[in-house]
């Protein structure tokens, strides 16, 4: 089912994720959730994993969701969404958009088993990962999405591992549509949501969502930080369609990683009196590798 360019490019504002939730000021995830819900539209069921989004959007008795919302546990959102999908199939109800949403943990760690199963079985579910690069809801502990060098409460000297590459893992499961996005480019994000929902089978959308509290920056810098994540090459934006990398967002004038790192408290320890330590050089290498690999 193809959507016209007009519809794909149209910015949606339906307030399906209502105001009045309890997210921190400047929360990237809250912004992303709103954009996703509006892009998906009313005919959508949101299965959400335990995490920041679930906590700030669904306290009894005031959930913010104007579309159906289902929350169970931290590690099983993909399996739960699979169940909803199977039910709709057997009852011959629908079509309906089934979206599974989760953060670092429910995507790549505690929920890894579950997402792999959903991808492998090929359920008609769009999985949206809100990547804020740590377990923010429980107080900023590291996840397998925590980037190299970042300080968290369980990596107080700086994280020593590289980000797990979920987009590629999804593609290797045979997921026909995989994409990354950042919350500053709302047009691109909504377009990818709409496009994904037209495709048969499982889909994976990985959205970078800065967390002012956990990353250590002012709430009004969320958008700028997203832009720098892209402009440094640290967070490449692309699609993988049927296994092929495509539609890479190019960056004509790259920025050095320092500009991105210096804005965030979680990287402050990488600078001694303003002078970058060698970890910064290592992070620059990671950025350069991305630039080359994706031809950013």
């Amino acid at each position, binding site marked *: 089912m193809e959507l016209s360019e007009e519809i794909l490019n149209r910015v949606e504002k339906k307030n399906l994720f209502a105001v009045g939730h309890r997210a921190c000021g400047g929360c990237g995830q809250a912004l992303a959730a709103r954009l996703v819900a509006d892009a998906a539209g009313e005919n959508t069921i949101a299965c959400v994993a*335990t995490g920041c989004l*679930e*906590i700030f959007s669904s306290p*009894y008795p005031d959930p913010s969701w104007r579309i159906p919302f289902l*929350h*169970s*546990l*931290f*590690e099983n959102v993909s399996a739960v969404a699979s169940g909803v999908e199977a039910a709709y199939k057997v009852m011959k109800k629908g079509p309906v958009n089934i979206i599974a949403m989760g953060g670092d*943990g429910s995507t*790549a*760690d*505690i929920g*890894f088993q579950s997402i792999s199963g959903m991808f492998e079985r090929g359920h008609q579910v769009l999985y949206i990962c809100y990547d804020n690069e740590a*377990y923010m*809801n*429980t*107080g900023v*502990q*590291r996840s*397998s999405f925590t980037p190299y060098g970042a300080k968290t*409460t*369980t*990596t*107080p*000297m700086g994280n020593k591992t590289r980000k797990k590459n979920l987009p590629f893992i999804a593609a290797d499961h045979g997921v026909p549509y995989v994409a990354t996005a950042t919350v500053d480019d709302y047009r691109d994000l909504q377009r990818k949501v709409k496009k994904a929902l037209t495709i048969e089978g499982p889909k994976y959308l990985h959205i970078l969502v800065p967390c002012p509290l956990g990353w250590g920056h002012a709430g009004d810098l969320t958008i700028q930080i997203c832009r720098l994540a892209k402009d440094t090459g640290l967070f490449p934006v692309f699609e993988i369609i049927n296994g092929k990398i495509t539609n890479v967002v190019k960056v004509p004038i790259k920025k050095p990683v320092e500009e991105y790192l210096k804005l965030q408290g979680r990287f402050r320890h990488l600078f001694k009196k303003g002078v970058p330590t060698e970890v910064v050089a290592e992070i620059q290498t990671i950025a350069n590798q991305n630039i080359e690999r994706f031809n950013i």
Partner: protein
Amino acid sequence: MLKYLEGSHAVSQVVAMCRPQVISAYPITPQTHIVEDLARLVSEGRLDAEFINVESEFSAASVILGASAAGARAYTTTTSQGLLLMTEVLYCIAGMRLPIVLTCTNRAISAPLNIWNDQQDSMTVRDAGWIQVYAEDNQEAADLHIQAFKIAEQTNLPVMVCMDGFILTHAFEPVDIPEPQEVDAFLPAFKPQHIVDPRWPRALGLYADPRFYMETRYILHRALEKSEDVIKQVSADFSRAFGRPSGGLIRTYKLENADLVIVTMGSVAGTVKDLIDALEEEGKQVGLLQIGSFRPFPKQAIYRALKDKMNIVVLEKAVSLGRGGILASDVRWSFPRGERKGRVISSFIAGLGGRNISTDSLREMVERVCLEPVELDFLGLNKEIIAERDL
């Protein structure tokens, strides 16, 4: 040395002094400060241990199972959902007789999601073959860990130290933190018995068909029963070495002349003691029996303490849905059939999901049970938010 600090920090400092060699934990509120502290101590080189940041509690328990089976002193901490996620491994650890210590920062269980305190989590796994002890305050929470490693390694049974989440973990109060050499003197190095080591090849974790399985369960059950003596002994040794009472099977407060006895466990015991003193000034004699060790269930100690007490009320922070009080059930069973007549044992469920237990509501509970027995009730229930048909 007497320090003023948060419960979690007291626990992490004392656990570090117990020299665990492998620590693996997955962050979950309200245990996070313990995990973060230990991670920091290891990364700063102040604790010589492997700290494994795993992807889930199931893996955390599995990592320390492996570590313990390889002969290392192993530790983890979790709560609520995390404890339930590792339940399968908990049974495995007990069945394999691995002397692991786990801190359970008691928290309510989903659904609905609730991050605040109650004891449903540890109650859920009470049958798994672990020793379960409950702390009254942060001093005891810290002290119980030192005792726990000793008890575990003497009995080859895993020990779960339970402390009320938020109420104790996030409370600041004075705690006497021992010196490392004091802990070393009390807790010798771990001497594991059955490990995987090419020097002495052994197979651990076999499967047992109907000819053998039942006997393994019997042996485990008896081991738990016999551990009562070890728990008592270690508690006595601790008191002697550190100069304060701590742990043990049960503790009583103003029981002698009590007309009514409140039986409970965990931090609410403190609130109950304040109430008992206030009631005493008003001429009412109420006593307290605190459960220190819930598993093994100290049936005989309870019976001896309460055999002349005819009005008892059990106050607990968990419920067996569809049945009633769990602790109440166990307490009722402590009295032989012939001695149940005329004895009233009321059951109150309180504090679920972090609901505040006020002295006022406890007072009401005391007044009610002094008038009539209460088979089962939920303390401080807000009936206004319950639909008529659900009452």
